[in-house]
């Protein structure tokens, strides 16, 4: 039976990996991911799970090991943050097209310079196009559930793609929350053993990772992209079966008090909870504000988002990432593309908030909604604004 406990979210996520009966964990510690791999090294050392913990010399080696162990048919997990994710970058583009279902928890943290260990989404947005399935967790329960969902979806033979669960550093990873931990029997019901379509086996040799000459490279890349787009169905099915078994239903995008809203805040990750409080406050004042939370970032759930946005006139899109020199932030740009020349599309304004651990308060969300409403009447010079930044 599931057990509801007060637990640090990092530890809960690591427990999900343990319950998934992981085989190989190549990992290198980095703040704020450390508690996840620290706990996993403990459970491996204690014999609580029959797995190899490989204390690698760098994140580049961690992801290289992940590719090797996944190719050999082992259930593989790793976790990283920020600069560590960037050191993996060269290898991160490889498991997608090679169809290795590695699962990784990215504990989102800002990038240098200046050095910051605190939370925003600039690390993962810099690696947006690595071709992994990507979800964003909002709560501790989600971090636990989405990790199990990630193994289930990534390893599904129709998908066979790597998958990232994003969770905000400190503001989610280090807080103690009430989390319902599933029992081993329950997890086994949901997550079948990993049976890859192909694996490295000396008795049945194949070549993985050959050169793609100009005659075939485009086809190989398109095959990967199509597989990523087609994974949508299995992602949704994975959530539905999770709900059937355990009662918690997840969707690609979630809405909060959005039905008759004129202005919708759009968020990803743990700031969504504060945004919900802000919506309640604004609703109490009679403002028609609502929220759309994006849980599935890649493949981007376009149809679901359009449906969720409904008839709203204005979107106030929150990005936790400043894209230097760009027209606007990555989520803002995605949604502008989605709604470009769509009849009756909402006006979209982009706010860059919460960089490097800056708190995004209820008041800030109210400010964004008010500004977006004002911008809808008088178009601003730039398509985005860095919220709360001091000039002098």
């Amino acid at each position: 039976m599931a057990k509801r406990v007060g637990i640090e979210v990092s530890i809960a996520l690591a427990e999900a990996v343990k319950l998934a009966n992981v085989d190989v964990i190549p990992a290198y510690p980095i703040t704020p991911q450390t508690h996840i791999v620290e706990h996993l090294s403990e459970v491996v050392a204690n014999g609580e799970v029959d797995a190899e913990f490989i204390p690698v010399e760098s994140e580049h080696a961690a992801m290289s090991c992940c590719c090797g162990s996944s190719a050999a048919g082992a259930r593989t997990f790793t976790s990283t943050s920020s600069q560590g994710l960037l050191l993996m970058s060269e290898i991160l583009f490889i498991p997608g097209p090679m169809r290795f279902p590695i699962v990784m928890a990215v504990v989102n943290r800002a990038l240098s310079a200046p050095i910051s260990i605190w939370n925003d989404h600039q690390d993962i947005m810099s690696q947006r196009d690595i071709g992994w399935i990507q979800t964003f967790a909002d709560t501790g329960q989600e971090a636990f559930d989405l990790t199990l969902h990630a193994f289930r979806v990534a390893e599904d033979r129709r998908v066979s793609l790597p998958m990232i669960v994003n969770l905000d550093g400190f503001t989610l990873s280090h807080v103690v929350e009430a989390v319902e931990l599933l029992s081993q029997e329950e997890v086994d019901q949901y997550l079948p053993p990993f049976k890859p379509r192909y694996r490295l086996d000396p008795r049945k040799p194949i070549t993985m990772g050959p050169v793609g000459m100009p005659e075939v490279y485009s086809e190989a890349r398109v095959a990967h992209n199509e597989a990523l787009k087609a994974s949508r169905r299995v992602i949704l099915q994975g959530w539905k079966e999770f709900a059937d078994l355990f009662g918690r239903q997840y969707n690609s995008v979630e809405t909060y008090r959005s039905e008759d809203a004129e202005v919708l805040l759009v968020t990803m990750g743990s700031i969504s909870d504060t945004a919900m409080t802000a919506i309640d406050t604004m609703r109490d004042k009679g403002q028609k504000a609502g929220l759309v939370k994006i849980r599935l970032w890649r493949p981007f759930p376009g149809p679901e988002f359009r449906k969720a946005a409904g008839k709203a006139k204005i979107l106030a899109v929150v990005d936790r990432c400043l894209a230097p020199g760009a027209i606007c932030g990555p989520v803002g740009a995605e949604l502008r593309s989605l709604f470009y020349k769509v009849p009756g599309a909402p006006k979209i304004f982009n706010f860059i908030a919460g960089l490097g651990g800056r708190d995004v308060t209820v008041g800030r969300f109210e400010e964004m909604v008010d500004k977006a409403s004002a911008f809808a009447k008088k178009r601003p010079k730039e398509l985005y604004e860095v919220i709360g930044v001091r000039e002098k």
Partner: protein
Amino acid sequence: MANTDAMIGWKTITFGCHVMEPGSSVKFRTGDWRSQRPVIDKEKCIKCGMCWIYCPDMAYTQTEDGFFEVNLEYCKGCGICAHECPKNAITMVPEEG
């Protein structure tokens, strides 16, 4: 580049772009990259086999009479054999056209 219209498409390409047949690289004839070919002077050749040892593509084979010959379907024309030959019995000659 070859005519790409007649080749495999993204729906028919192998899973993960894996090569399912072991040892199939032998079918990939690398000799068409060559801009020069080795020509062996049997008068100078002492059958030492240095060309055979050094050839990075294993394009050399020994014939029954003890001399060595090069398989031009795989020789990339790198010239290592000519460089290593202790008797200067191998000359690199530009390919025509």
